[in-house]
């Protein structure tokens, strides 16, 4: 249950399309992640969990190149991510930040269409491929009938679906989602997670930051547990998620029982004595 010292097991080149080596991440020199290496399994649904301020979102930002590491490298297809052109990265890797801002008076279709930017040129700003991608993204998120509505009018759940549609229109194989269920009620949380799960089943590689351990255990194929800027455990949630780990990482005494629906680990807090 220790974090593997180097991705790829024995210090060789990582085999995954997306990996990080020796990352040191900081905001204005306040170090959040001192030294972290991780490999994102291809075709997997990786979920990152951990207490507040443990560096989950920071790691996601570094993986998507929106935060420049102070040291270490992120490898995309085996090459340092900063050797690619920005649009080339965006064609392979899409990221949905925690709280993206919906522009004033934008329709759903226009918002989703903005995900096409990395595929467009100065003179070729709207081709039939763009049309197809946007229509497809709206369909896979069940948002087709919302297309001509204004984003500001939508409910929280609808809005999150539309944002995911925008990321899908990017047609990248790697999807990074930062807390996609935050601010949603429980039904909409599961709706978004089911959508993610379906996208994963269709062959995409997903990485998401989540707060809810039980949801993470149910949907992840690879669980990454972080504490204070380090990975303390990673792997199949059924093997990784133990009562000792939860108590160590979150300071919460608990028991783990099998989820009666999915059979995955279910964390139940102990009543304080």
């Amino acid at each position, binding site marked *: 249950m220790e974090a593997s010292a180097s991705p790829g097991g024995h210090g060789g080149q990582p085999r995954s399309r997306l990996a990080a080596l020796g990352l040191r991440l900081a905001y204005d020199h306040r170090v959040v992640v001192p030294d972290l290496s991780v490999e994102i399994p291809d075709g997997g649904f990786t979920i990152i969990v951990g207490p507040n301020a443990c560096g989950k979102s920071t790691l996601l930002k570094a993986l998507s190149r*929106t935060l420049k590491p102070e040291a270490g490298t992120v490898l995309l297809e085996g090459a340092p991510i900063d050797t690619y052109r920005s649009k080339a990265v965006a064609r392979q890797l899409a990221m949905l930040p925690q709280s993206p*801002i*919906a522009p004033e008076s934008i329709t759903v279709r*226009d918002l989703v269409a903005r995900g096409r*930017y990395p595929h467009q040129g100065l003179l070729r700003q709207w081709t039939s491929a763009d049309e197809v991608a946007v229509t497809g993204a709206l369909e896979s998120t069940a948002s087709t009938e919302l297309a001509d509505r204004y984003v500001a009018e939508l409910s929280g759940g609808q809005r999150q679906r539309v944002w995911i549609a925008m990321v899908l229109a990017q047609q990248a194989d790697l999807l990074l989602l930062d807390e996609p269920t935050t601010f949603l009620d429980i039904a909409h949380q599961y709706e978004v997670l089911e959508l993610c799960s379906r996208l994963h089943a269709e062959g995409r590689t997903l990485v998401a930051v989540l707060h809810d351990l039980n949801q993470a255990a149910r949907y992840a194929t690879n669980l990454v547990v972080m504490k204070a800027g380090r990975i303390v455990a990673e792997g199949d949630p059924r093997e990784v998620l133990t009562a000792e780990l939860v108590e160590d990482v979150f300071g919460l005494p608990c028991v783990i029982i099998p989820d009666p629906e999915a059979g995955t680990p279910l964390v139940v807090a102990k009543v304080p004595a």
Partner: protein
Amino acid sequence: MSVTALRAGDWLSLPVRPRSVIIACALAVGIIVVAVLSLTLGRLGIALGDLAPAILGQSTGPDAIVFEVLRGPRLTVGIAAGAAFGASGALFQTVTRNPLGSPDVIGLTSGAAAGAAAFGLLWTGILPLPAGALVGALAAMALVWLGTGRGFSSPARMLLVGIGVSAMALAFVQYVITRVGLQQATVLASFLSGSLASRTWGDAVIIWVSVAVLLPCALLTSRRLQLMEMGDEQADALGARSGATRGWVVLIAIGLATAGVSVAGPVAFIALTAPQIARRLTRSAGPNLVLSALMGAWLLALADLLTQQSPFAVQLPVGVLTAVIGGIYLGYLLVAQWKKGTV
């Protein structure tokens, strides 16, 4: 309804919004109407039939003087300066994601005024007045940049620091007024409220060239700028490099606003209102650069027409009129944003 696109072969494919195209045409017609009225109305107005020869330089006598000296330069400067203010406002408001992030509010116009005052009257002979305005505007923006502690990435800080810088710049202008003679002070006062009276063809060349160079540059950044509406992080994730884009956009916006100030003085609030009205008319997101420029041109030309011809505003500097109208709008915006909690 899907996206309409203008296509030519394999190499060109641009999205087109019918609604925006219609509004752009309407504004263009509006500008022409205001232009014709500006040249023909009033005691010295050129008769409609004599207009074409006057514009083509074929007429002699009073019409030639009215067009060549009195009204022609004033009108052409007004149109281009309005366009510069409108486009500058659209760029600033998009990059700060706040309608209040306009050159009027964040100290750029006041800084340009201070620079113009300093080099036009106090330290004469070092720099020409438009260059003085440029220096003033850049100095004010540098102060705002430094004052916020994080550049232009935080609109709220930018507004607060900008208001402070603006107050300092206006205090400096007051200082200059006390140092120069009464006659010069009167000229300065008129310039500082923003006026299009007694412009020359030289002014017109300056502003038209500035707009012709800077507006296409702005259009080249507009697609990346549009992604920045969704936040820096999302823009970066889409490959739009928010840091570099913000830098370029701010430079272009400073250039446009400064060019406007240097020929028309710090005309208030065109930059603030034109993009907002354009957005409400098109009901679409994005910087709406061309429409904001057309709207700015129409607003300023219309305001100047009113100051020339309407009985209650006769010969006021046009900036006084735009300040009254724009001030009311600014108040409305502040209240609306206060309610939304986004000030």
